[in-house]
């Protein structure tokens, strides 16, 4: 697969390629010593580049086309996945996937947005932008989880709910609102992880829960930087400024009191080592689920009200 390289990744990738080439001659002690030197430089470079990423660069990482998506995490983290389809009312939305799965021995209902990786699969997945039936399918699966007293894990990764004509006809707003309402009172634990893009209501429609986690290089906000730029600056050119102003990275959201924890990613981002990214996410999810296992079913609504009531800043 053709790897996509972001501008700020280039110096690192170039050095890595150089190392690869030199390894062919690693028998030569001089070259072997040189490799070690370059490796040190790669390490230093990685540290300085990734410590200094702007918010816009993090948005680019969150959208990296090689980044693991929901189905990648499901295959890397879980076993025995049984995918379920359809909202039983209109059709199956391919932008949201879900089903039964096991994290080690813990049976869960895992649901997430699903993007495609090339033109064909992106058309099939509608670029990860759900229609109302996607949210309704997700809700149907959550109700199943409640019936079988199984915790729910949701993975958020969407550029937004689809702003189409039919989506409006079928009640996009109602579908999202209904999910917020029903997720708040679902009588099983819900752990939410933002794995890539958390764009607005389209993300939040799967995002109400007991614990909210964000992968290190994901973003979550009320609007995408591009749309924010086009509305407030009346031009698409101010996306970098908009990303800064929106404060949409994982550390930002931690500071704002919206998320509970940041899930660290491998050096350079989840796409550089999906297996490791999945391992860390899986361990984190298991810990969270273990802590929530003790909560009584009738307590979830009160706890979630308390959690979300704390969010917001006002005077007077």
């Amino acid at each position, binding site marked *: 697969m053709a790897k996509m390289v972001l501008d700020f990744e280039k110096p690192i990738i170039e050095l890595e390629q150089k190392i690869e080439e030199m390894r062919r001659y690693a028998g030569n002690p001089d070259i072997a010593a040189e490799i070690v030197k370059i490796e040190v430089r790669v390490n230093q470079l990685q540290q300085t580049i990734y410590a200094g990423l702007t918010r816009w660069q993090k948005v680019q990482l969150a959208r990296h086309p090689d980044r693991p998506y929901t189905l990648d995490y499901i295959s890397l983290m879980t076993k025995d996945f049984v995918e379920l389809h359809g909202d039983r009312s209109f059709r199956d939305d391919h932008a949201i996937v879900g089903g039964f799965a096991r994290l080690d021995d813990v049976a869960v209902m895992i649901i997430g947005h699903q993007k495609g990786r090339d033109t064909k699969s992106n058309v099939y997945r509608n670029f990860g932008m759900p229609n109302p039936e996607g949210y309704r399918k997700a809700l149907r699966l959550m109700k199943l989880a409640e019936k079988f007293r199984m915790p729910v894990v949701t993975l958020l990764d969407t550029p937004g709910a689809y702003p189409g004509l039919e989506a409006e006809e079928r*009640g996009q*707003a109602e579908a999202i*609102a209904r999910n917020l*309402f029903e997720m708040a009172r679902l009588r099983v634990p819900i752990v939410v992880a933002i794995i890539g893009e958390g764009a607005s209501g389209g993300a939040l429609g799967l995002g109400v829960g007991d614990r909210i986690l964000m992968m290190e290089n994901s973003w979550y906000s009320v609007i995408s930087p591009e749309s924010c730029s086009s509305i407030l600056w*009346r031009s698409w050119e101010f996306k970098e400024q908009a990303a800064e102003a929106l404060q949409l990275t994982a550390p930002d959201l931690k500071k704002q009191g919206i998320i509970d924890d940041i899930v660290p990613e491998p050096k350079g981002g989840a796409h550089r080592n999906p297996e490791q990214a999945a391992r860390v996410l899986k361990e984190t999810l298991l810990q969270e689920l273990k802590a929530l296992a003790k909560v009584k079913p009738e307590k979830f609504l009160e706890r979630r009200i308390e959690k979300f009531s704390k969010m917001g800043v006002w005077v007077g």
Partner: protein
Amino acid sequence: MAWFKRSKENIASETQKKEVPDGLWTKCEQCGEIIHRTELEKSQFTCAKCGAHFRIGSKEYVGIILDEGSFKEYDRRMRSGDPLKFVDTKRYRDRVSEAMKKSKLHDAVCWGTGTIEKQPIVLAAMDFSFIGGSMGSVVGEKIGRAIDKAFKTKTTLLIISSSGGARMMEGALSLMQMAKTSAKLARLAEAGVGFVSLLTDPTTGGVTASYAMLGDVIIAEPGALIGFAGPRVIKQTIGKDLPPGFQRSEFLLEHGFVDMIVHRKDLHAEISRLVRYFSTRSPGSHR
């Protein structure tokens, strides 16, 4: 000296037209009728000729819907804390101050208690004139407190929505107000307390995708724009013109997303009827 001078002001967007001006005479945007202020007030700010509903604020709705003098407002002075120190072409702080000065309000919603044909009700009403009725922390918190009050006193809740959506300048905190209000509405529902949602022009974005669409009964004013995405965005996405009447109240009624369309002059009577049903305990019911 230049022959032509570009006006500094931006082109007004299509959603900002129908406000009631301060002057003595108002021209109906829809039919061109020129209406005197006193006439306008008598007709609850609708056009007597063509029925167009002018955009009005929370104060006017309180006057139209509640029993006279019954309204008691809470948290009137709550205002935004500018959590992100947000700056775009302007500082958010300055936008808020300007909006406060212009609208004489502190944010885009007001809430309180009152009566409707002597039945108690908790009411929250939004003001589109305050930064497009956008929902930030203050709107979320005040709506949340209205829901709490309805829950604690087991009183029917009425929320009158008018909003362009969540407020960008408070980032993800604005988004979370959708979750906050919806979670509280879930508790209200479990307590068996009724909730009437009234949608007025326009109700879009995050407000529609949370409390506005969660009413036990959803009423829309005639001709109101109601939707998730705005028409401009949808047009851009699909690359086609939108059909006439798309996302208007009548369209939503047709597609099953609102219960009824009610002319402003009938709101008081219609909502009162609903409140009466909500508090009925029929013989044989266990509550």
